[in-house]
């Protein structure tokens, strides 16, 4: 059974088709890359999976369960986590609190009003440990708004990991990062437990080929081809529409 599966997934904005009959499977433990030229519909595809967008037609399954009609939070509860291409953080709160809020939601105590949030030392410690592992422990009490961009990308990743997802969607996690921080991101991703299924959108082909054991190429909302990195590298169509565009832009 696939960790994540879409069947004939379609999304139209008026006459514009941004997702066209996408059949996709993400196997348990996969390191799966989604690549394609700008405007291919990669982020739209992620938004459909997470429920931020409602598909025009088609089915989305998580671990075999049809979640097409579920809310975003319902899908998160079933083990779906994501990062955003554009940082989507609680900008006025501290780094620690960004992660802590997430951990509280994961533990299902977000509705509780009976005790102080900060009394949950265990959850705070866990949040802090996660920050340490991403080398941003020293910034725990700093306000997100005041941090440099590179660290924000790491906070973005920390929030997704704090959910302890079974399926993790990474939308260009290293976009705009200097190489030192790119390394942190990819070391972290590589050290994640093997049973987490990861779908990653990335433009840097070196990283894609280093990390992924499967690759799907999306062009104009349609799956062009799917295969192992080796197959993709030698696929004539891919070279034509994607790699043929010139050196990585």
């Amino acid at each position, binding site marked *: 059974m696939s960790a994540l599966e879409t069947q004939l997934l379609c999304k139209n904005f008026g006459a514009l088709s941004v997702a066209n009959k996408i059949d996709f499977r993400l196997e348990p433990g996969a390191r799966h890359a989604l690549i394609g030229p700008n405007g291919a519909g990669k982020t739209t595809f992620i938004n459909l999976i997470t429920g931020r967008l409602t598909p025009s037609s088609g089915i989305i399954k998580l671990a075999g369960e049809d979640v097409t009609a579920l809310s975003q939070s319902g899908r998160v509860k079933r083990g779906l986590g994501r990062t955003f291409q554009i940082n989507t953080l*609680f*900008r006025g709160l501290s780094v620690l*609190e960004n992660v802590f809020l997430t951990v509280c939601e994961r533990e299902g105590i*977000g509705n509780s009003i009976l005790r102080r949030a900060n009394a949950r030392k265990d959850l705070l410690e866990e949040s802090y440990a996660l920050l340490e592992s991403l080398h941003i422990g020293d910034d725990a009490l700093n306000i997100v708004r005041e941090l440099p961009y590179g660290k924000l990308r790491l906070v973005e990743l920390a*929030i997704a990991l704090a959910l302890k997802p079974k399926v993790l969607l990474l939308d260009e996690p290293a976009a705009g990062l200097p190489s030192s921080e790119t390394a942190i991101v990819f070391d972290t991703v590589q050290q994640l437990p093997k049973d987490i299924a990861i779908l990653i959108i990335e433009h840097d082909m070196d990283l894609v080929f280093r990390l992924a054991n499967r690759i799907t190429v999306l062009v104009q909302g349609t799956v062009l081809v799917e295969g192992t990195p080796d197959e993709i590298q030698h696929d004539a169509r891919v070279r034509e529409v994607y790699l043929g565009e010139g050196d990585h832009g």
Partner: protein
Amino acid sequence: MIFKWFNAEQGSAVERFAKRDRLNPLELLPWILAIAAYYVFPSYLPLGSQILLTILFAISLDLALGYAGIITLGHAAFFGVGAYSAGLYALHVTGEPLSGLVVAAIAAGILGLLSGLVILRTTGLTLIMLTLAVLLIVQEFANRARPITGGADGLNGIAMLPIFGVFRFDLFGHTAYWYCLSVLFVMWIFGLLLVRSPFGRSLTGVRENITRMHSIGAPVRRRLVTIYTISAAMAGVAGALLAQTSQFVGLATLGFERSGEIVIMLVLGGIGRIYGAIVGVVIFMIAQDSFARANPAFWSFWVGLLLVLIVLFARGGALGIADNLVALLRGRKK
């Protein structure tokens, strides 16, 4: 002593963070001042009661606007509904005050729940418009349903029984002051518990980034409706206090001015921190009482100017300015 406090942040990050929302002795200061005010300014007790119940109203608004980021210009709807239901309850059922508060909280809470379910699906200007629309509908109803509400004449002849059957409301407002202070104290504790709980924290998350809140699995709509309902009920209690202590309910309780002014007072003090409500209301109402009497025509000019200046230069309000001063002092000590 006071400097030790400013430098209280020691220990690991987690320990420092965990300490942050413990009750700070400074938080008892407003209560000491409120009790002192009773003895120092005995002739100002009616104004004092007004200030206390307005603080409660402002705290209720802070929960919705300051913490959850729901921009509303219609919060007087809940204040007014609370006032009218408390007034009607006293007129037609019993003049017992505490049950009147409960009735007002329930009535305003129901309106908050129903309207919240409907309007909190929207955001931005549409949401502002809809909060206004709810207020206008309630207002129009109160104005037109003369047989029930007395229309423009309001509800007269409200007679209150003694609190617990012991403490009579007197002409000089002694009982009313203690009554308002006690109710405010209880509500303040409730408010503090609320905003420091995981639920309250999640509201801050909604305010800071609703998209992210969805993506970490929080049921955002339900949280918003919940806090809106709680906030409405609390505003209803504030309205009920006005009805019970002034023994009159008029259309002004539902006025747009009341809605607008309470937002201004809250912003003046600083939003999203509970104490902004206290500071803002006290400054505003004392200033209003003294300046507005001297030159009422120009009062609104100063309020407007102040608002513009706050937006342009001091977004955190009075407490925000105080924060900056404290930070400055600390910086100098290092």
